[in-house]
């Protein structure tokens, strides 16, 4: 060991890098004998002290000037151009990929689609004239998802207002799937751009078990149209990795539809000559349907409240058409200005995806090939043979009707050295992931489950902690047991998840006491039951009786203590899916008056016969009621809905809990 190497290693160790035990030993032996290296460490530590003992730098509050500059920028963007005759494109609706068809030709196209459907199978719904309910759609879609082993489809995509110079873009979307984890999605751009410098939006995403790849133009600043192509490859991908997922909703939208919140059944119709059901939902709730917008390339922006109309084949539940319509609101008009978009009419779709061909045909060999390249990222999931699994919670072959598929050993996030075993089960598009670890040291639920998660009873005994599906993760449970920590995640329903956990036969214990406590600012918050909370705070506890938005349930309660002051937080979360709507937090504490205004933008609102305050940037409604400060906040929930929650608040009594 020479001084240069020793000092390099010492420098790394100071920065928290882990040295192998061999290197650490050699460095320490060298350090003990070397005065130069000892001096290096001493000086480096003095330097660190000099930096860290320096009083914290006073930081000016620049929020106002920054936001003013941002607002100026938004307004200064060139006003949308009025339509004028462009040399390249017509400004009306463009010729679609397939020429607009007359009735006879349309029949032929419908025939082509019908011809390529291989209908039947356990999910097949006989198509009749009987009225259909949203619950029928949900059930049908879930059944279709479990039964889908192979899929092949081609869609046309038309996007409006990508750029003032490119009013319409025409693309083709090709999708291939082979259960459980082979997926490919190619976007080919057929748009005529103003010049050759514009990079076409050609994308290719391939998932093939432990490998993943994405080819497409790299992100480049707005206004620049020549973006270099890039290729990303991920190796040692974890089974059903949430970082590199299979985009299942494009084939059968069961993630989007499960739970049914904020989805409206418009009725039965015919699309492309096939009987179809038409559903309507907000864009933010429909993002899983549009994976191509998220994975890469350049796309126009969409407004969260835009209206998505989705037509599903009434027999197979495959999406036949989905369109995004601008929402008619003032907020959207402002948003259009900000993004330099023209005034978009609410009855003209800004994105239309139409099925041209759908089949349950096995894709040809080679479709999912991912060539090895020099620049690969490593997801570091090391495969474990299913018959070599350590004895644990997960069963060997089958779990509640799903077949054992793939297992891996991975690191527990953010903890070097700690390992977890992940075993996955699959059927069609559906999957279950069971992870366990014996290395968990944090005082909070294991896995991607928040400490405010809802406590649910596991059939067969015990309690576990539940979170609804989000954009990136499935429905999931953290389970604490005497032997170790368990995490179960699935894209199946909440009920199926609980059945699956029951099938694992674990003895689920409540969270240990230490896990119920967290630091909250200068105070301490402790998770308690409603009954405990009633005994601990000296103000009446108000809870919403029936005013919660659809799908919300009380997830958890915590008592917050700061000196002799105490307060209470109650968290309400979605039962099934939290796409586009966040948990609601209710905060109560004894107080005589509202604190001074925390934000510039606020308005006075009448709440329960008192004057309250609405702070839109925080989605927070607050008021004082009989000596109690009450605050309700939830991102993404409009004032009207929070007011309904407020109106329904009523004092909670012990009799409310646990009794039928």
């Amino acid at each position, binding site marked *: 060991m020479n001084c240069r190497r020793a000092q390099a290693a010492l420098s790394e160790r100071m920065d928290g890098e882990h040295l192998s035990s061999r290197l650490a030993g050699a460095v320490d032996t060298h350090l003990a004998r070397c005065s130069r290296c000892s001096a290096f460490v001493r000086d480096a530590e003095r330097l660190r002290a000099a930096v860290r003992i320096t*009083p914290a*730098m006073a*930081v000016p509050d620049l*929020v106002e000037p920054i936001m003013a500059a941002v607002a100026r*920028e938004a307004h200064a963007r060139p006003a949308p151009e009025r339509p004028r005759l462009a040399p390249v494109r017509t400004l009306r609706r463009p010729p679609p990929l397939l020429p607009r068809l007359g009735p006879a030709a349309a029949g032929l196209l419908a025939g082509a689609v019908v011809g390529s459907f291989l209908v039947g199978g356990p999910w097949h719904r006989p198509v009749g004239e009987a009225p259909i309910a949203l619950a029928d759609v949900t059930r049908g879609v879930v059944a279709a998802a479990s039964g889908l082993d192979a899929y092949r489809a081609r869609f046309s995509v038309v996007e409006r207002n990508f750029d003032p110079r490119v009013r319409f873009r025409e693309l083709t979307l090709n999708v291939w799937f082979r259960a459980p984890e082979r997926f490919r999605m190619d976007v080919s751009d057929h748009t005529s751009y103003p010049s050759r410098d514009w990079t076409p939006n050609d994308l290719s995403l391939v998932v093939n078990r432990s490998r993943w790849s994405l080819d497409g133009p790299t992100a480049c600043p707005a206004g620049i149209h020549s973006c270099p192509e890039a290729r990303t490859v991920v190796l040692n991908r974890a089974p059903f990795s949430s970082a590199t997922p299979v985009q299942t909703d494009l084939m059968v939208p069961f993630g989007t539809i499960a739970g049914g919140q904020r989805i409206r059944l418009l009725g039965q119709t015919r699309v492309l000559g096939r009987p179809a059901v038409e559903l309507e939902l907000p864009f933010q709730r429909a993002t899983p349907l549009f994976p191509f917008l998220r994975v890469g390339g350049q796309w126009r922006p969409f407004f969260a409240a835009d209206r998505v109309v989705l037509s599903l084949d009434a027999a197979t539940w495959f999406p036949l058409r989905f369109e995004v319509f601008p929402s008619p609101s003032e907020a959207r008009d402002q948003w259009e200005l900000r993004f330099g978009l023209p005034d978009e009419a609410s009855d003209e779709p800004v994105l239309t995806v139409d099925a041209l061909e759908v089949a349950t045909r096995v894709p040809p060999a080679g479709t999912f090939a991912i060539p090895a390249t020099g620049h690969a990222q490593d997801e570091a999931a090391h495969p474990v043979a299913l018959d070599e699994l350590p004895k644990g919670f997960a069963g060997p072959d089958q779990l509640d009707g799903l077949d054992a598929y793939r297992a891996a050993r991975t690191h527990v996030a953010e903890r070097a050295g700690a390992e977890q075993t992940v075993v996955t089960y699959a059927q069609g598009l559906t999957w279950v992931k069971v992870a366990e670890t014996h290395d968990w040291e944090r005082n909070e639920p294991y896995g991607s489950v928040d400490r405010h998660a809802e406590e649910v009873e596991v059939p067969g005994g015990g309690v576990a902690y539940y979170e609804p599906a989000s954009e990136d993760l499935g429905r999931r449970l953290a389970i604490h047991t005497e032997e170790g920590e368990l995490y179960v995640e699935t894209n199946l329903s909440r009920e199926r998840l609980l059945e699956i956990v029951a099938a694992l036969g674990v003895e689920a214990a409540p969270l240990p006491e230490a896990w119920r406590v967290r630091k909250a600012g200068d105070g301490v918050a402790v998770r308690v039951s409603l009954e405990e909370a009633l005994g601990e705070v000296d103000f009446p506890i108000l809870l919403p009786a029936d005013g919660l938005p659809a799908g919300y349930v009380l997830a958890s309660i915590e008592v917050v203590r700061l000196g002799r002051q105490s307060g209470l937080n109650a968290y309400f979360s979605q039962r099934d899916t939290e796409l586009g709507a966040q948990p609601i937090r209710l905060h109560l504490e004894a107080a005589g008056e509202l604190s001074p205004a925390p934000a510039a933008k606020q308005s006075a609102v009448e709440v329960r016969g008192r004057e309250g305050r609405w702070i839109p940037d925080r989605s927070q409604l607050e008021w004082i009621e009989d000596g109690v400060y009450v605050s309700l906040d939830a991102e993404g929930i409009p004032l009207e809905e929070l007011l309904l929650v407020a109106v329904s608040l009523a004092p909670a009594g012990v009799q409310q809990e646990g009794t039928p």
Partner: protein
Amino acid sequence: MQDPDPRTLARARDGDPGAFEDLVRLYQADVYRFACYLTRDRTLAEDITQEAFLRAFRFLGTFRGESRFSSWLLRITRNCGMDALRARQRGMEDRHTVPAPAADPTVRAELDHALGSVTDEHREPFLLIEVLGLSYQEAADILQLKVGTVKSRMHRARIALSRALIDEEETGEL
């Protein structure tokens, strides 16, 4: 440095000014501190902070989560800092005057001088890792270097800065 709530980030990307304001509140101190140390000029650092957030707003639609959001933002800050320093240098050449940089009074003078006496190549990784507490990977993302390069520059920065600090203190004691 903490990550923003992905929901806030998504809303900011969708053009929600409230969400973008949340990001400004969350990161303005780090951006300002980094700009301050880079330029050793508080007034300039304020301008850089504003410019960095404005550019972030402009290009937020292109942020795809390939690095952490904080790394992306500090990379923009660094670019703004470089632009500002270059502009100031040009200004000096044009006007042949040297505006006195308003040195930060809260930073120990010796450390300030020591930081001023080493090259950017050493100062930048040191600021990111030692002062802002970032990881090698984050510093590498911001400086667009390999992690190995950041490690070795950090090592050399420690040697150069220790030496400069000792020199400063010895001069100060005379």
